[in-house]
């Protein structure tokens, strides 16, 4: 199995890669930290990966995306699974008042992902197969007063994926929208963790399962589907007053 992971050094990406390594996958990893990518190469090989190649880039440079995908295709031959997991969660209060911060969230979580998807869709169409899984978030299901900038950046991608899924249906390509709940990763360092929080390892198990089963939209862990169902149906006049 050949796996391309974009944002590979993220906690969730790393945990997912390890699961694929235990299935003897071949990898192409993309992230911006060269040293950590190199460490990850060694780690995955010991965990069973048949080969690991990597490319270190800042993913905000969208003009380089085609290059990245091209080298991945060359190295891997065919790409069976693509997992896109880079993202940022900045100081959200600042994003409420400062456009530059909001722009950064939208660019990293939204635009850079769309740029990658446009290129991937073209290349995988030619290949005639492949699964593309993208990490969005439960935060995209409904804008909450505390994190609507982040939520909007994820909703943008989720909506895009809904349409792309249909577009690629006849080309044998599956699109999987992964919506994690609260995950104890560097992104949420400093947050008080409670019962609803999951480890990146648990989330990774959910991701791999969702990709195996070709799920359209996967909430991980699965109980988030129920929670978000409730959240979506809270009437506006109550919801607007909630402080979460």
């Amino acid at each position, binding site marked *: 199995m050949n796996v391309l992971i974009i944002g590979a050094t993220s906690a969730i990406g790393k945990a997912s890669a390890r699961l694929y390594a235990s299935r003897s996958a071949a990898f192409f990893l993309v992230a911006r930290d060269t040293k950590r990518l190199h460490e990850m190469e060694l780690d995955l090989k010991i965990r069973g990966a048949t080969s690991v190649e990597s490319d270190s880039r800042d993913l905000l440079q969208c003009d380089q995306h085609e290059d990245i995908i091209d080298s991945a295709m060359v190295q891997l031959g065919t790409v069976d699974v693509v997992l896109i997991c880079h993202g940022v969660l900045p100081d959200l209060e600042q994003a409420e008042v400062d456009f530059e911060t909001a722009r950064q969230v939208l660019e990293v979580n939204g635009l850079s992902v769309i740029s990658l998807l446009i290129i991937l869709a073209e290349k995988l169409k030619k290949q005639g197969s492949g699964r593309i899984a993208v990490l969005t978030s439960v935060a995209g299901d409904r804008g909450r007063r505390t994190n609507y900038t982040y939520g909007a950046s994820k909703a943008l991608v989720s909506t895009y994926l809904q349409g792309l899924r249909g577009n690629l249906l006849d080309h044998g390509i599956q699109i999987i929208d992964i919506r994690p709940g609260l995950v104890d990763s560097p992104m949420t360092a*400093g947050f008080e963790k409670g019962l609803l929080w999951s480890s990146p390892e648990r989330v990774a198990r959910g991701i791999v399962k969702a990709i195996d089963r070709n799920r359209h939209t996967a909430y991980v862990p699965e109980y988030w589907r129920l929670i978000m169902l409730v959240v979506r149906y809270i009437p506006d006049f109550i919801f607007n007053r909630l402080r979460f």
Partner: protein
Amino acid sequence: MQLQGWGRYPQVDARLIEPSSSSTAIATIKAQGPQDSLIARGAGRSYGDSALNSCVLGSRLLDNFKALDTESGILHCGAGLTFDQLLQVSIPQGLFPSVVPGTKGVSIGGAIATDIHGKNHHQDGSFCDYVDSFTLLLANGECKICSPRKNRELFHATCGGMGLTGIILDATVKLEKVSSVSIRSRSVSTHNLAHTIEQLECLNSNRFVVAWIDCLASGPKLGRGIIHVGNFHETGPLKYQSRRGPAVPFSMPAILLNRYSMKLFNNLYCRMNNKAKADTVQDYDSFFFPLDRIKHWNRLYGRRGFLQYQILLPLDSAQEGLQSLLETAASAGKGSFLAVLKKLGESNRNILSFPGPGLTLALDFKREASVFPLLNELDRIVIDHGGRHYLAKDSRLDESVFKAGYPQWKKFKALKEKVDPTQCFSSLQSHRIGLTAKPGSVTS
């Protein structure tokens, strides 16, 4: 955020920093001000406050494999790697750690910092005896490779040194070749304490030996129990497995935590594991890590948490000391209904390592106000019998009791002052037991 150890007592509001690479860990230490102090944390499986402070550096993300030589069994990995992850990779290669703790959750860094012992200490010594070297991040931001050959003093202070010499970033450990990971085991029941101790001695030729003591038995039956022994089987699958049973989803409400429910739990557990059994072959997971089957079992003790009390008594005073410990705990009506008793072998050169020749007893206590005076009473018995306490389990030990049990503390403290003059590394435990000065107090 709120942090606690496995016993869920004490709980502190701490800043948790989890570097995602060695270089970020180094940068974190270099950025520390002269007044700042922190402590390393592995997987948080020590029971008390040894990995707690107002600032904590977690090794969770330093969990990469770096090299594994399947011929020699030499493994190089990040300090945050857990035994569980290690076994997933090593077992299919026919490799197993020579020393494993009672839970797979423990990290390699934590295993070194407390120099853990297994059910085979009487034959094979403790974990650090298999540590070839490690990289230690010191208070000044410098990294030193320590081994029994290089930076020897620092090596022997860090093994069992409770994180007080610095942060272990990665380690090289020698794994053992095994032809199977099945365990041939049997159990023997004993009538009383003298019999249990005698049998532990007789069964010494087995690789793994551990006794469960029935703490409800009293009078002439005091100290009766079951001894489990095991050895690696010659044949069997080299397959990683992890039995996942039910999880305890949240802290049990206090009302469910009474003598009767605890008794029920212990009895069930007892019944699951404590029948005298003839030779059977069982998988390594159920033999070494039976408690891992119930995820978060520590939540059974409720929000207030619990304390584990583990001590070591030298052989010649062990029987008398154990007798009085068990009697005192039973007459107070406290403590677990099961206790674990193991025979340990020779000690090593590590300054603060717990194991040494003698018998080690572990008891669990639900945390309630009346338990503390009882434990003080038990401390006296331990000290009077020349014993000591396992720091990995401790959350309340008195400075004087600690020092009586570890006469080498002075040597440790002198070395600590040399490598960490500003007390960059300290824990709630190290303040309490007098290995570091409490913040705000004048250092002499």
